[in-house]
């Protein structure tokens, strides 16, 4: 006879230990299970992939460190993809903490010690070229190369601040900021996060307000992502895509069906799907952190499902269900 009560009342630290084992061990035994991208992610990828140097996108780093593990890989993946396609990227943040995460995310893409990354050329560094009139992307790159700069081994290209990339950073009352950017980006952000004058940047001159932006991808762990839809899409028809935590993802399917958002990456899985598409499209040499996490995620889900089933068996076998049933319960 099994003592079900004792079984159910097991010290929870044993359960913690099991979970810990399941999320650590699979990192060392790689299964490499295939991740099949869904339409919701594919539509974001396809949209970014159809853009080029004449277009521009926004990436909103609209989350806090708490959900970094889920949102950061999405941001990094989209940023990498856009930079590889030479699509200019504006980065904003809804919270002060998000700005720091955006800087970290960008830094990981610009870390040339790792192959497959980009070489970052800060605004001040190419000032002489600007003065000489090289502001178009291709002419700037050829002039930059002609000046004796060469790409280090394994790097995918140059990223010129102000042409390919601008970190606008955090502003409070972000709903208002999105509304204001519908008219002019530069009045909301006179300078970027490093104090450079935004009006002088070629990418801003070519894209002065949200009407001239082809996509905004918001990475969020809260309802902050809706600012882009309520104030961006509703006012100037800005196409918006979501990269949200899994906890929130199921709530936003109505907005995909209504056509208010282009697509959605939900949680680490969504990020992994984007990484897979990007890898297949030849934009990265390897898949990233999110994809690597998927094996672990698989096993952890199996364990939790097992816990639910075992727990319920014990519950019904032990007859606990009879004790608390309410007449008016459901």
């Amino acid at each position, binding site marked *: 006879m099994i003592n079900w009560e004792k079984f159910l009342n097991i010290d929870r630290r044993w359960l913690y230990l099991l979970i810990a084992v399941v999320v650590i061990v699979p990192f060392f035994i790689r299964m490499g299970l295939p991740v099949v991208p869904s339409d919701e992610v594919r539509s974001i990828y396809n949209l970014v992939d159809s853009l080029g140097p004449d277009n521009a996108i926004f990436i909103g780093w609209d989350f806090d460190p708490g959900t970094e593990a889920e949102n950061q890989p999405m941001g990094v993946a989209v940023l990498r993809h856009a930079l590889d396609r030479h699509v200019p990227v504006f980065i904003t943040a809804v919270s002060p903490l998000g700005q720091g995460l955006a800087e970290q995310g960008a830094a990981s893409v610009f870390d040339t010690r790792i192959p497959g990354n980009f070489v970052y050329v800060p605004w001040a560094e190419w000032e002489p070229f600007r003065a000489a009139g090289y502001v178009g992307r291709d002419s700037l790159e050829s002039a930059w190369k002609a000046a004796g700069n060469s790409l280090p081994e394994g790097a995918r290209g140059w990223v010129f601040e102000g042409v390919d990339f601008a970190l606008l950073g955090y502003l409070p009352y972000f709903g208002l900021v999105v509304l204001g950017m519908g008219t002019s980006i530069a009045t909301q952000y006179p300078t970027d996060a490093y104090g450079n004058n935004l009006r002088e940047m070629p990418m801003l001159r070519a894209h002065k307000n949200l009407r001239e932006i082809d996509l905004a991808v918001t990475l969020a762990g809260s309802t902050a992502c809706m600012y882009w839809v309520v104030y961006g899409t509703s006012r100037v028809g800005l196409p918006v895509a979501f990269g949200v935590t899994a906890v929130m993802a199921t709530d936003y399917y109505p907005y995909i069906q*209504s056509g208010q958002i282009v697509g959605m990456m939900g949680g680490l899985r969504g990020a992994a799907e984007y990484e897979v598409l990007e890898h297949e499209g030849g934009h990265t040499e390897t898949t990233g952190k999110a994809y690597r996490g998927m094996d672990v995620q698989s096993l952890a889900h199996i364990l939790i499902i097992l816990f639910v089933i075992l727990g319920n068996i014990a519950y019904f076998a032990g007859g606990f269900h009879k004790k608390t049933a309410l007449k008016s319960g459901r």
Partner: protein
Amino acid sequence: MYETIGLWVAAILTLAVFSFLYKENPLYRFAEHVVVGSSLGYTIVITYQRVLYPRLVEPVFLHGESLVLIVPAMLGLLYVTRFFPRIAWLSRYPMAFLLGMGMGMAFPYDMQAYILRQIQATLIPLYTPGAPWYNTLGAVVIVLGTLAGLIYFFFSKPHKGPFFGFGSKVGIWIIMIGFGATFGFTVMGRISLLIGRVQFLLSDWLGLLH
């Protein structure tokens, strides 16, 4: 050097927080408190850099332009009166300004994005010629499911009769399926967050993964 120390500090703090799972302890409590102070400290710096300096200090005090900006600044300063009980009521002025105008601004946009657009997206054909059966079934589920869900949350009629009685039953089933999806995704999200920390410890800190 900076990087190495940083890595170790981050790893030790991560473990300190995890130690709570075994037992509540001083190290955890320390981490819990530090995070409160440092997030606010960081916010002070960023707010000054991103808002107060470019929007107030630079134009008004350095260039002497846009003097009208002193008005919102004064209004904002009224928040400080909250610390002086006798004039604390003055702090309601900036709140009234932001709350009233903010709510007024949001109202029509919310009506547009949360109500009208959603109703429009529910008025879809149940049957589209040529659509695969699962999409047709899906369209029926969307329309009838939304209607049933609304019936469940309708409080002016008792849940009786074919429309309200049956409708509310279907409604709660649909809602439970929706919650099931949320449940599954929530579990997934929490595990992902843990995976992130494990990756940090194993890869960034210990360098065990490639």
